[in-house]
């Protein structure tokens, strides 16, 4: 109606509003509970606060206005249908509600007041003669608690302000304690934190110094280490060079020595070899090794045979000498006997025999010489020393001649000596 009229499409974009004049409706004191239900009958106010076209609240969640001013008849019908259905549902719910049982015969239920304080129930609305222009309808405030009128006697005592209890004074010590305690506690905590922060700052400053010094120290250590290593390396290198030099010098010396050593090696080797007889005259060697032994052997056999011959001759001589010796013994004894006989005769003949004996000795010498001469004539003991001399000479010869046959010779010689000795003793 009024609202419908208001929605005149306008050429300009400005909003215009117009409304038909109408009578002010009868106003009630309280908002009608059922006003919403038959809101169709209630005329709409031209109040912007309730105008649906004015957008309130969050524009994001605004409902979109229908494109056409007139609602769709189908839509209206649907809404009515829904409303009817809602009414029916409500009614059904009311019927289903549990109710007190039906009254017995002859009685009927009536409503009575069960409240503590009875009052007349009247539906009559108080018609007051007060008029005022309210700003807006308010919800009905809840009824205040009913307090029945006081009965009895009242006594009063006047207590002036601050007479019994002055909050400000009373609360002051408590408050002071509370605040003091809280402040003390917080002060302690803050002090502690501040102290820690100070310590940390100092520690950081110290660490800054310490770290820098530590790096410096490590850097120097590292530098020192590198220098030391470098030095060791240099020394090592130097040592190697020296080693090599020494080796080279040794090699050169060895080479020179070897050269000089080898230089007179060949002549000395030849000299030594020649000295040791590796270079010999074949003829000389043949003479030494082949001829001389043979010669010695031959000489030995020669000497042997001569020795044997001499031994044989010695035997012969011994035989002869023994014979001569026995012969001379016999002759001597005969001569002795003759002389004895002569002396006996002389002694008997003359006392001057003494002189005679002297002269007689001469003839005996002469006799002896005669005997000797006889002996020599028979080939004779005078030969014996010669034979001896011959023997020794032969032995000497044998010794000179042979080395190897010396022993064999010695045997022969021994025999010869023994023979010779015998010969001398007997002489």
């Amino acid at each position, binding site marked *: 109606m009024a609202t419908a009229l208001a929605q005149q499409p306008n050429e300009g974009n400005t909003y215009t509003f117009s409304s038909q004049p109408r009578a002010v409706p009868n106003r009630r004191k309280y908002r009608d509970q059922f006003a919403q239900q038959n809101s169709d009958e209630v005329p709409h106010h031209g109040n912007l606060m309730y105008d649906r076209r004015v957008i309130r609240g969050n524009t994001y969640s605004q409902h979109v206005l229908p494109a056409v001013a007139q609602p769709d008849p189908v839509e209206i019908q649907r809404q009515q249908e829904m409303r009817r259905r809602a009414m029916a549902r409500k009614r059904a719910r009311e019927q289903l509600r549990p109710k007190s049982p039906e009254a017995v015969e002859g009685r009927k239920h009536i409503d009575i007041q069960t409240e503590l304080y009875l009052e007349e129930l009247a539906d009559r609305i108080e018609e007051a003669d007060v008029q005022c222009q309210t700003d807006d309808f308010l919800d009905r405030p809840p009824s205040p608690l009913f307090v029945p009128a006081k009965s009895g006697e009242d006594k009063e005592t006047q207590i002036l302000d601050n007479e019994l209890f002055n909050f400000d004074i009373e609360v002051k010590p408590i408050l002071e304690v509370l605040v003091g305690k809280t402040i003390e506690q917080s002060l302690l905590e803050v002090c502690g934190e501040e102290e820690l922060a100070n310590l940390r700052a100092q520690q950081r400053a110290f660490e800054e110094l310490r*770290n820098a010094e530590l790096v410096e120290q*490590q850097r120097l250590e*590292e530098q020192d280490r590198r220098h030391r290593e470098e030095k060791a390396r240099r020394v090592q290198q130097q040592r190697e060079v020296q080693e090599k030099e020494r080796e080279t010098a040794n090699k050169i010396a060895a080479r020179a020595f070897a050269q000089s050593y080898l230089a007179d090696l060949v002549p000395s080797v030849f000299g030594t070899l020649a000295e040791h007889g590796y270079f010999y005259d074949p003829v000389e060697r043949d003479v030494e090794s082949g001829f001389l032994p043979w010669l010695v052997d031959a000489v030995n056999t020669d000497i042997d045979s001569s020795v044997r011959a001499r031994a044989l001759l010695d035997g012969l001589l011994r035989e002869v000498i023994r014979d001569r010796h026995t012969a001379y013994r016999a002759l001597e004894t005969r001569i002795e006997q003759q002389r004895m006989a002569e002396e006996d005769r002389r002694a008997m003949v003359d006392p001057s025999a003494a002189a005679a004996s002297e002269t007689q000795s001469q003839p005996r010498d002469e006799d002896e010489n005669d005997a000797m001469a006889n002996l020599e004539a028979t080939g004779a003991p005078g030969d014996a020393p010669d034979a001896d001399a011959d023997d020794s000479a032969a032995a000497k010869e044998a010794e000179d001649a042979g080395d190897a046959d010396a022993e064999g010779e010695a045997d022969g010689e021994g025999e010869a000596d023994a023979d010779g000795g015998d010969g001398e003793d007997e002489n």
Partner: protein
Amino acid sequence: MATSVISANLPPNIDPTKATMAYGNGALRRLNRELQDTENMLTRQKAVKALCDYLHDHEHVAAAIHEGIVVSLKSLLRDTDVTCRQLSTMCFYVISQHSVGREAILDTGTIEPLSALFEDAEDICRRNAHMAIEMLSEVPFGADGIVQAALVPKLIEKVKSEHDEIKEYILDTLHFCLIVNTQDALKAHGMEVFTSLLASNLATIRAKAARDIMDLSVPLDGKDKAVEVGTVPALIGLLGDNASAVRANAAGALSFIAVTTQGKYTALNADCVNPLLPLVNDPNSEVRVNALKVVTCLAEAPEGRKILTGHVEQIRQLESDEITNVRKHAEIAVRVITWRP
């Protein structure tokens, strides 16, 4: 009109989660008794919560240790209740801020049960445990205790998978442990883990990882490992970082790695000099010093010296720096660069 209605709500000044404190010397004795209450979980919770605030006073810490609170807290670490665990770890954090507290923690052998909480399901328990361990590691004997408890490999394992906040604490702890001992961390592939952390989004983590690399490359093995794992290019990439701490620590780590001949040539081949030279004029003195040290180390190599000879003037300017340390190291750097065999 005055009414005598007693509100159901407690007055605002009373914390229902905290135990009431006994007066004076009795406070700790009572708290200790309540901590050992195995019957009532609520009692323990309240006591440990109250203790947590109470311990912030130094005098109370000493008294608590004297009272044997540490032992009670140690048994509380294995509590089934999350609140008890997390508050007791918090207490340990507070205790470990004091020297007496750290000694007491080491004496009672609390490192092991604390480290058992690294596996806890609750983030806050793990965080508090790491905070306590980190605080403990700040002094050499604490770090020594942690190393002896063989926590270093475990921490390195954890740093791979923890939350970023906890990672920071672990990296701090490792920093202090690495000053004491680097072998364990090297064996546990610490260098690889730290190198992967250099790519983190958080500047603090990058800085701390770089610092840990620096600590790890102090011994010769660490330097070789860093070259082998390829830490050097990652560190060079961090030289242009926005955070000065990252730059400082990256330069520091590089200076340690570049001490060896192998490290020098790896850095030179990765074109270390160009990003390094702007750092010499960095506003942060630590960055300047560390950059100068890298320059000094690189200048020891003939190739590095050849490159750096052209920039001697820039370094010579630092000889008049206002910080003594910078002056000193600038002089050393100039001396090394201009050295002639």
